[in-house]
């Protein structure tokens, strides 16, 4: 029986439920020192004097480091190298590292931090993303022109980056439009808040840095540590213990370079672990943003053109993914509907605030929120049913999205029809009543196309080991998916496939647990390697069985002559024979998503240019609003999601549930606020509220299989996208419930009461 499509238990599950799994936050080494970081108390300042002499002489202190110890300049994905590990002359955000200490005990490290002399001349903080680009605003990076970039991109002053996508004749289409609608939307910062905080344990060994860290993307951390410290990537080895959640927040180097440089200076292992407050204050959240959309439509609701401006807050530097993902905004705005003429400008702007970063779905949740509220506005103006407007403009198979990429396998209509079977739109609309609302939203999304390599070997006992540097972020991609794919290819039991611990020294480059790529990218690499192992097995077995390899099959941990059950060999025998005759059975595989045709000329400043292994989705929400408290209750939720091929349906459902609930938090209450003086207000989970079990509605899930020709066994990415349409569909449903549009996230009770009041006032006029 095939293991593909079965809900096998995760290989790391037993240790996890027993409390035996060792997480990054649990890990330490003999003799490890404790580290603490001195962080800036203000958002903008010039450093007049920084003196660590007294601190370095204190009892138990083994190392004190500052900018002088980490000369490199870097940036996430090396896209824009505007970050130093420690502030040099200028402070650019409250919480920016200034110095770090390693000491025998935490108390000694804290005392030393307190003894560091730091004299600052405060500067005017630039905090507002919308005025940061105004003429005369102080430049946060006066040296911006000297920074290196991965690809050329338009930028100037406080405009860290600009990505543009433009196709067709937008002006002409606006001139000919039946109706032009214009709106502006705002969204907040959302913090990943993995249960495990960031943690790093580093040592310096034989001239190399060895760091244990629960990162999603070990090779990125390796490269970033190297760049910040001014060494070669191969001078750094990253080892990944069990990861206690990431959601994008653990893609980038954070504490690792600090622990590394301290360990080198101290000559001892160094452990650095964030508190929850440090997490909230300094670890990059999803960026706050403003989205302006102007759309031209025909009388029947056909979209003729769209003009969009997306202003995203980069924070003080590009140590998060916001610059790298700038062009994701145009792609997602123009990826679900037919928009023949489009112009999107995506600006990433510096402010004196903590850097923003990747959070599941990157720029998409607020772009989709804006697009969908805006479409409801158009539907209202035209008197067209909201679902009907969407169906009319939905991209069909073979039609191009905004970058000219033809979506040959578009499955949006099927996704919309599937949620309609689960929760029929006609019935919901017929049963509508005040303070109850519903909405439906389609989505096209990307699978991260990045590279990955794997090794597969047949052990002497007939089991299989995969060497891979893919990180098991919790999704089950390594703990189930890759093992299932390899087990299927080699006809062995799921339990007989092991995967090596994640270690940059032990396996080929891997592009990290991001954008749902592990089962897809690493799955492909492992599948290729397993295919080569299969050929070697058949070759050896053919000799032993005196049969043609073409007549052999791999079933139940054995090779047998098809149709002749008693002519078979177990894999251990094959492996043992191979050792004597040809050497060990092993092979490698490599993958990067194949190129897809698109119109490269329509984009500038784009690091993401197209949607590889695109997936298609529809989400539906039903909500109720309490007019006295403003509280929104999500009554019911439905998801139809194209996964290409479902390798492990139960794990996919878990990803869908988890993404929807994170989306509910984003839609209704999660909000990492900044004070007027540039400090993070929500520095504990008391005011940064996370969804609890009571916030979860019944969620209907339909998994759609629309295979990808270059996915492993047809699979596409499945883990990331379920968060993306949630804020949009809930906001549209709330707007439907109260008869008033929503222009800002999150929909806290106060915001909903305000909207209710405004709605009443405008109806009274």
């Amino acid at each position, binding site marked *: 029986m095939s293991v593909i499509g079965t809900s096998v238990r995760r290989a790391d599950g037993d240790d996890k439920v*027993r409390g035996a799994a060792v997480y990054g936050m649990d890990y330490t080494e003999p003799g490890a020192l404790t580290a603490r970081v001195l962080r800036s108390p203000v958002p903008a300042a010039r450093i007049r004097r920084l003196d660590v002499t007294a601190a370095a002489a204190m009892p138990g202190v083994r190392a004190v480091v500052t900018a002088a110890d980490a000369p490199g300049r870097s940036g996430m994905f090396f896209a824009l190298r505007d970050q130093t590990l420690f502030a040099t002359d200028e402070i650019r955000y409250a919480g920016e590292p200034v110095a770090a200490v390693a000491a025998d005990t935490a108390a000694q490290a804290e005392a030393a931090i307190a003894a560091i002399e730091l004299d600052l001349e405060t500067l005017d903080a630039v905090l507002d993303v919308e005025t940061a680009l105004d003429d005369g605003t102080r430049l946060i990076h006066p040296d911006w022109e000297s920074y290196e970039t991965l690809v050329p991109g338009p930028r100037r002053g406080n405009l860290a980056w600009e990505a543009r996508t433009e196709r067709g004749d937008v002006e002409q289409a606006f001139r000919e439009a039946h109706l032009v609608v214009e709106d502006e939307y705002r969204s907040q910062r959302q913090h990943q808040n993995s249960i495990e905080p960031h943690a790093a344990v580093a040592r310096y060994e034989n001239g190399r840095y060895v760091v244990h860290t629960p990162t999603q993307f070990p090779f990125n951390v390796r490269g970033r540590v190297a760049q910040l410290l001014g060494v070669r990537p191969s001078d750094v080895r990253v080892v990944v213990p069990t990861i206690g959640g990431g959601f994008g927040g653990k893609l980038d180097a954070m504490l690792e370079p600090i622990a590394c440089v301290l360990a080198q200076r101290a000559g001892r292992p160094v452990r650095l672990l964030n508190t929850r407050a440090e997490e909230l204050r300094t670890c990059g959240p999803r960026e706050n943003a403003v989205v302006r959309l102007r759309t031209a439509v025909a009388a029947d609701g056909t979209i003729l053109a769209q003009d969009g401006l997306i202003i995203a807050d980069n924070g003080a530097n590009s140590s998060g993914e916001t610059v790298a993902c700038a062009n994701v905004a145009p792609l997602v705005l123009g990826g679900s509907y037919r928009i023949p003429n489009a112009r999107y400008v995506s600006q990433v702007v510096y402010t004196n605030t903590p850097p923003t970063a990747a959070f599941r779905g990157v720029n998409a949740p607020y772009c989709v929120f804006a697009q969908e509220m805006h479409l409801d506005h158009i539907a209202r103006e035209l008197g067209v049913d909201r679902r009907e407007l969407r169906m009319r403009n939905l991209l069909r198979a073979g039609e191009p999205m905004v970058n000219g990429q033809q979506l040959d396998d578009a499955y949006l209509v099927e996704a919309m029809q599937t949620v309609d079977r689960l929760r029929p739109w006609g019935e919901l609309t017929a049963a509508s009543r005040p303070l109850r609302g519903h909405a439906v939203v389609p989505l096209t999304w990307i699978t991260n196309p990045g590279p990955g390599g794997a090794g597969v070997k047949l052990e002497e006992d007939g089991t299989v080991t995969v060497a891979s540097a893919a990180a098991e972020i919790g999704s089950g991609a390594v703990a189930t998916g890759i093992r299932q794919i390899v087990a299927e290819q080699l006809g062995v039991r799921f339990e007989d496939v092991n995967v090596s611990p994640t270690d940059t020294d032990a396996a080929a480059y891997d592009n990290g647990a991001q954008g749902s790529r592990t089962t897809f990218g690493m799955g492909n690499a492992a599948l290729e390697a397993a295919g080569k192992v299969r050929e070697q097995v058949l070759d050896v077995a053919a000799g032993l069985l005196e049969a043609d390899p073409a007549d052999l099959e791999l079933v139940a941990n054995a090779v047998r002559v098809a149709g002749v059950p008693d002519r078979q060999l177990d894999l251990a025998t094959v492996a043992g024979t191979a050792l004597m005759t040809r050497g060990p059975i092993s092979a490698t595989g490599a993958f990067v998503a194949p190129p897809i045709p698109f119109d490269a000329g329509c984009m500038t400043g784009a690091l993401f240019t197209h949607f590889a292994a695109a997936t298609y989705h529809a989400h539906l929400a039903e909500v109720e609003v309490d007019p006295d408290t403003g509280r929104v209750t999500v009554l019911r939720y439905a998801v139809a999601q194209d996964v290409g091929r479902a390798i492990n349906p139960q794990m996919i459902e878990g990803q869908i549930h988890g993404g929807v609930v994170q989306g509910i938090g984003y839609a209704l209450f999660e909000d990492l606020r900044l004070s007027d003086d540039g400090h993070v207000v929500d520095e504990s989970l008391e005011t940064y509220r996370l969804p609890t079990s009571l916030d979860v509605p019944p969620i209907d899930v339909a998994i759609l299989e629309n295979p990808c020709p270059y996915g492993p066994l047809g699979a596409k990415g499945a883990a990331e996208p379920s968060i993306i349409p949630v804020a949009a569909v809930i906001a549209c449903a709330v707007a439907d419930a109260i008869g008033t549009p929503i222009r800002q996230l999150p929909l806290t009770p106060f915001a909903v009461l305000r909207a209710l009041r405004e709605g009443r006032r405008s109806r009274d006029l």
Partner: protein
Amino acid sequence: MSYSFTLNGQTVEATTPGLTPLLTVLRDQHGLQGAKLGCGEGRCGSCTVLVDDQPVAACLFPVANVAGRAVRTVEGLAAPGAPLTPVQDALLDHGGVQCGACIPGVVMTLTALLESEPAVDAATAKEALTGNICRCTGYVKIVEAAVAASGRGDQA
């Protein structure tokens, strides 16, 4: 000060200031790293252990308060190599575990619930879990697992 209590059935002694969080004693003195320091502020529940069969947030609970009482942690549920408890088993069977950082706390909360409630339905399980934040799973499969482990077999 010295405080004596039972830890997973064995009598132990903790010599430490009375306000030391129980979690610190468990992790640093007894090497029990199952319970996690997720927030240290009593908000996430990843540090949940049982004191006289009641779930407590060990990151805040002072060790002085466990003197003479019985503390149980996730490590005390199923001996190494022994079969999982119904709660642990159901969590895996239903796909209720992703990153797993919340899971030791969830397991303890549900263990206490199942010991005190003969028949747990989805609403009761959700109510009991409000102190355990899970950022990964959306709780659906954890709730399903709780109901299944209590043997009622009905669904959320």
